[in-house]
């Protein structure tokens, strides 16, 4: 009788131990400890482009039996210059800053960068995860983000249900977000010409200053065998409102020379503000496989993405955790991203030709290949503590679209981008 009771106890303990297996997060801390992960990300595109410093604190805790909270505090500080959307020209080019109060000039044959780009963002994200019954869990999530010209608020819930001796988990998630824009100099009328700084002519303004997004996800996670786990998700995201980049412009070219047009009204510069559709429907299919070798772990994922702006992409991502012994590890990372261009992506608009319905020269909406390689090193430094460092290099190459005219053929219309990513992390319990 005593033996039977003990056997039942072991079985229930084993079942309990496997309860959290299929959750995306793992909880190691005891009920009384906060599981703290602190990181600092340094991202730089070189001396002339954007640099970012982003400290993050992530704190998780089991606040009651099988009930967890996860809080993340994020601070972003961005500096540097970012492409304004105009393309390089053999002539020097003068632009008005977003505030409309001053101007900056870019020399011949150089990619126009707006070097007034500064931003600070503070963000708080939270998750509350608990069991509804023996096989079903719910995760409530919320986030708040604030920067100089942008505010975002989101809330969501994800339900997960275990089946098949907890070898299968079905997931359904729903989230809403509401964003409000307050761009420097307020919102410029799409396709309105850029007005010369300091002139008497006012810059045309106006437009919706908000956007809403609804995300829906269904997922299936499956234990394949003792060492392999797979996940398959489908997500859809519907955004509506102001989806244009308020700071991006396009060059208006002379149809014969390809140079910025000189056929201008008083106080106008040869650039117009971009215009994107006011709705976007995004879809993604995501697959991930995690496999344990004798000591090491392979984590491979693939995503196919498509939307109604004409963008589609393939993303392949591989992490290999190589155990060095004693808890130390090396983790190489490789990522390949292939993207097709949005239907309305173009390098310029042509003086004298009808304007398209939508147009953007934002290189992020163009055809691109992005590769990332990186290496992470982690080392335990004490009881349940770990230091880690990650170094990655990202390279993005873009393709030109359409027919280039005159001077455009002599310019590098889509210069490649290189970025260095550095991350330092410290994990401990408190």
């Amino acid at each position: 009788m005593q033996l039977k009771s003990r056997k039942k106890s072991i079985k229930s303990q084993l079942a309990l131990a496997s309860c959290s297996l299929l959750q995306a997060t793992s909880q190691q801390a005891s009920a009384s400890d906060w599981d703290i992960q602190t990181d600092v990300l340094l991202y730089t595109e070189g001396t002339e482009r954007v640099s970012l410093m982003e400290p993050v604190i992530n704190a998780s805790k089991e606040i009651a039996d099988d009930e967890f909270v996860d809080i993340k505090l994020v601070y972003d500080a961005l500096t540097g210059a970012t492409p304004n959307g105009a393309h390089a020209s053999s002539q020097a080019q003068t632009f008005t800053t977003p505030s409309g109060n001053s101007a900056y000039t870019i020399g011949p044959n150089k990619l126009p960068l707006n070097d007034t780009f500064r931003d600070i963002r503070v963000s708080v994200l939270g998750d509350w995860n608990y069991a509804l019954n023996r096989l079903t869990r719910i995760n409530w999530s919320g986030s708040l983000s604030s920067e100089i010209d942008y505010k975002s608020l989101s809330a969501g819930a994800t339900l997960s249900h275990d089946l098949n001796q907890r070898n299968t988990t079905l997931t359904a998630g729903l989230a809403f977000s509401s964003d409000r824009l307050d761009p420097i100099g307020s919102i410029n009328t799409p396709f309105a010409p850029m007005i010369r700084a300091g002139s008497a002519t006012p810059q045309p303004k106006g437009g919706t200053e908000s956007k809403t997004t609804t995300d829906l996800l269904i997922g299936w996670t499956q234990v394949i065998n003792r060492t392999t786990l797979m996940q398959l998700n489908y997500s859809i995201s519907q955004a509506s409102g102001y989806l244009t980049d308020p700071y991006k412009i396009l060059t208006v070219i002379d149809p014969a020379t390809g140079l910025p047009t000189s056929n201008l009204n008083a106080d106008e510069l040869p650039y117009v503000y971009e215009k994107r559709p006011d709705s976007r429907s995004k879809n993604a299919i995501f697959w991930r496989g995690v496999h344990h070798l004798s000591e090491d772990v392979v984590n491979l994922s693939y995503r196919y993405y498509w939307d109604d702006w004409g963008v589609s992409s393939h993303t392949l991502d591989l992490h290999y955790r190589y155990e060095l012994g004693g808890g130390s590890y090396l983790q190489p990372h490789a990522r390949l991203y292939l993207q097709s261009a949005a239907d309305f992506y173009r390098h310029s608009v042509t003086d004298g030709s009808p304007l398209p319905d939508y147009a953007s020269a934002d290189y992020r909406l163009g055809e691109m290949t992005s590769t990332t390689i990186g290496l992470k090193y982690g080392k335990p430094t004490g009881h349940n503590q770990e230091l880690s460092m990650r170094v990655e290099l990202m390279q993005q190459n873009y393709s030109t679209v359409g027919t280039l005219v005159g001077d455009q053929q002599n310019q590098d219309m889509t210069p490649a981008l290189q970025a260095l990513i550095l991350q330092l992390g410290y994990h401990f319990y408190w």
Partner: protein
Amino acid sequence: MKTLTIVSLLIVLITSCSYQPVKPWEKDILAKPTMALTPDKVDSFLDEHIYFSKEASTGGQGVGGGGCGCN
């Protein structure tokens, strides 16, 4: 049609493995933190922020999250 083909291929990929349910007491390896679907949560969070800012694609791994004026 393309979507249907991709979904079908992925389902075949998952279900084609000969399947024997793994018992709770056989989940020692699967229970390791390194076997979590997202073992480095903060790394993934930061990567998503970077790629959200530099590329036109998002989604697939979860819902919601911090909005950002960076894209």
